[in-house]
């Protein structure tokens, strides 16, 4: 794909693919755990099994799906759900931009399918693999996207939503605390600087106040819109950003908590991507 960059040997390809499998196995385990928790939360919020599973297949975005459970439970109107989903998933834009040069020679239809499977996890696995090889290897993308993430996430969702319906009096087992705990834990994973910290605190505070004055649904939207705006008031020099959005470090932070993708070699930075 890239004439100016030497091809890697078969052993290097095998080693890098093996690393994708090992890293992907950790991500698959995490996806199984969180997919199951999502299924339980969706069931608790009143989703039918078909609705919960459809959301995992069609949307295929963990944080947005967890958030949607909360939106629906709080009675937020669909336009609000869609707006917040768009904002929450907008980070994928930067992942697709980063991967675009690597995948430009892949046939259009396959790229269109790849796009649906682009998550924090698949991005991190694929870009790390490509950068180690210094060229594209589609195999790495498909394994990271389908085997490590899509299949476990959807299987676990089905298990969670189906088994969740069998649990009598689920609040006795603390099922109701799983959703807010998952939300705050995911938020912790996204805080990579002072701006995010301010946005989170302001978003939460504003949301609670507005929720008490109007309704929980409105509070969540207002907090989610005002929090980031206030966070932007923190000067960039003071932000101490450690993982700017769209970078591998950011993808690693966005990964399902508990999983981790080791960084690629130091000399294989973004500048190595084919242009």
């Amino acid at each position, binding site marked *: 794909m890239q004439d100016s960059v030497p091809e890697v040997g078969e052993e290097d390809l095998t080693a890098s693919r093996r690393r994708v499998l090992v890293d992907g196995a950790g991500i698959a385990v995490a996806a199984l755990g969180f997919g199951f928790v999502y299924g339980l939360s969706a069931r608790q919020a009143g989703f039918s099994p078909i609705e919960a599973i459809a959301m995992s297949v069609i*949307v295929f975005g963990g944080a947005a799906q967890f958030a949607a459970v909360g939106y629906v439970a709080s009675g937020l109107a669909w336009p609000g759900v*869609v707006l917040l989903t768009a904002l929450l998933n907008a980070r994928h834009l930067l992942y697709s931009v980063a991967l675009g040069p690597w995948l430009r020679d892949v046939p259009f239809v396959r790229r269109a399918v790849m796009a649906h499977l682009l998550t924090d996890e698949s991005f991190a696995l694929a870009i790390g693999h490509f950068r180690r090889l210094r060229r594209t290897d589609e195999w790495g993308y498909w394994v990271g996207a389908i085997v490590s993430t899509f299949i476990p996430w959807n299987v676990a969702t089905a298990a969670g939503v189906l088994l969740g319906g069998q649990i009598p009096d689920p609040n006795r087992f603390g099922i109701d605390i799983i959703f807010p*705990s998952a939300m705050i*834990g995911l938020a912790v994973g996204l805080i990579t600087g002072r701006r995010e910290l301010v946005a989170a605190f302001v978003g939460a505070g504003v949301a609670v106040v507005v*929720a008490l004055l109007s309704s929980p649904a409105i509070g969540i939207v207002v*907090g989610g819109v005002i929090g980031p705006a206030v966070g932007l008031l923190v000067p960039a020099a003071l932000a101490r950003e450690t993982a700017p959005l769209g970078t591998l470090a950011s993808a690693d932070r966005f990964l399902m*908590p508990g999983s981790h993708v080791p960084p690629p070699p130091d000399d294989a930075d973004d500048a190595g991507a084919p242009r």
Partner: protein
Amino acid sequence: MSTELVVLAVLMFLVTYPTRAVGLLAPGMERLPRQALDYLQLVGPAVLAALAAVSVMVATDDAGTPSFHVGVEWIALLACLAVTAWRRNLLLGLIASVAIVVVARATGVSPLPG
């Protein structure tokens, strides 16, 4: 079995897919102002924190009237936050959170939510 939310899933897909596809299918269309990118970076923490806070601090009665709620759920949430930040592992945080609530409810320290 209800299928109404499948339509919502499709709508969520329609706003998610373009952000995933634009860089792969239409190179050069991805330019966004720096301020917009910065704002998007902050949306996740703000929305997720808002959801968590409202879930444990705001209760609604049958008429939908919101009221301020104080309970063991606060402690559970803080425990999850602390464990997740400390161990960088949300699964451990969730286990700690659920354990606190289960014990509190089993011992009668905290009532089951209505």
